[in-house]
């Protein structure tokens, strides 16, 4: 179980997160939707301490940390229980595909090298990238890099994987296959929080959809609730804009 409570974050005078709370049960896939600038990325970054929240707590299973005051030790512990899949992949440029995966296992988690490599090879195979094992990221396409990015997160065996628009930097024809890989991750039963604009993916995979706007959670519920029976005006407006009329659910 992951629980985020009362997260607030401002950049200067700009209040980006205004008291956001979110609960994710183990094995659930929570999809966060919302217009650009609504604070989705900032929320994920606060969970992973890439950004220091001004207020708020995070509970992962038995561990609770204050998102504002957590010590470096706590920060590191939380980071080892979470993984991040970035919009722009974020593969280590100086490491090969397999080294990208083993780095977190060997250096951060002190797993013996042979074991880490075996694990990485297994995950590489699972995302269909075995043949690119020793390639540097600069030699891989965006889709291939994101597969490695996902493999890196999965190999860490985290309590939750945070996906920040994992397909929005990809060429349109590659989006489908990467969403396919993410669906596979979901089927594994890994807890996930996914920021995405892919509605059909949300419909199919999400256990819960959260609609954010202006730094608050406007509405949340099952995909059915949020997509078919949105209660809030802002949600309706957003869905009208993002879903083409001919696919409109209502």
């Amino acid at each position, binding site marked *: 179980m992951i629980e985020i409570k009362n997260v607030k974050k401002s950049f200067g005078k700009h209040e980006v997160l205004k008291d956001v709370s979110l609960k994710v049960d183990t094995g659930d896939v929570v999809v966060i939707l919302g217009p650009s600038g609504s604070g989705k990325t900032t929320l994920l970054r606060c969970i992973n301490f890439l950004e220091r929240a001004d207020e708020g707590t995070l509970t992962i299973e038995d561990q609770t940390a204050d998102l504002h005051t957590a010590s470096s030790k706590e920060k590191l512990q939380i980071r080892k229980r979470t*993984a991040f899949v970035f919009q722009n992949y974020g593969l280590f440029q100086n490491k090969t595909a397999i080294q990208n995966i083993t780095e977190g296992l060997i*250096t951060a988690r002190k797993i013996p090298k042979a074991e880490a490599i075996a694990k990485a090879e297994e995950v590489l195979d699972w995302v269909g990238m075995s043949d690119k094992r020793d390639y540097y990221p600069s030699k891989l396409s965006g889709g291939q890099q994101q597969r490695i990015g996902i493999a890196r997160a999965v190999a860490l065996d985290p309590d939750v994987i945070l996906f920040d628009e994992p397909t929005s930097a990809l060429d349109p024809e590659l989006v489908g296959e990467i969403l396919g890989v993410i669906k596979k991750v979901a089927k594994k039963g890994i807890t996930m929080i996914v920021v995405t604009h892919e509605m059909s993916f949300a419909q199919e995979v999400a256990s819960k959809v959260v609609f954010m706007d202006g730094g608050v959670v406007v509405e949340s519920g099952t995909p059915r609730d949020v997509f078919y029976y949105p209660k809030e005006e802002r949600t309706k407006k957003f869905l009208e804009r993002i879903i083409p009329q001919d696919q409109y659910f209502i």
Partner: protein
Amino acid sequence: MMGFTLNNFIESLKSGLSYLPVTAKLTFTAVVFGILFGLLIAVLRYYKVPVISKILTVFVTIYQGFPMMVALLIYNLLFSFYIGPIIQFFHLGIEVREANNIIVGYFALSLGAITSMSETLRGALNSVEKLQFEAGYSIGLTKFQTFTRIILPQIIPVAIPGLINNLVGIIKGTSFVMAIGILEVTNASLIPCFRTFSYVEGYLAAALIYWFFTLLIETLLSVVEKTQKQY
């Protein structure tokens, strides 16, 4: 009339070459300090360590506009003023006139190397995307691990051309220390000239030695550089 006498030229060349170790030592020392402390300054400034980074920014900015020759003369002056009291204070048991001011040369060149190399390394550091750091943190690496395992290996290939440039500047800068009477390549090349007045030969000999030394080092380093770019 300025003629050119091969014998005098060769004599200057020999004399200059016999002091190449001095120039090489000055260069090498400055480069080692330059890379170590230059990296330290670049890192402290990059991570915006409170107070220290501000002080370093001011220092580097000001020092970069400070001519090497003026720096040398000032340090040498300070050295000659204070070496007596220092020897007394530490009971070094040596005579003032025995104290070798080559330390002033080492100091001035090292400080110059540190500031210029810190700028090169900071530039290389700035060229690394923020995402590389964040990806490191996200998989649970510490700041230190992220820096040493992810960032540093990426800035080395970027920094090498600039560092080689700095190094060439340092080699040329070593000739300034003749101004405070240290015998190095330039000064030594001119020794025979005091007797023969063959200054043209002396200066040409010095120039040739620097050219050769620079070329040698650049060639060696370009080999290193080639092994670096694998990604």
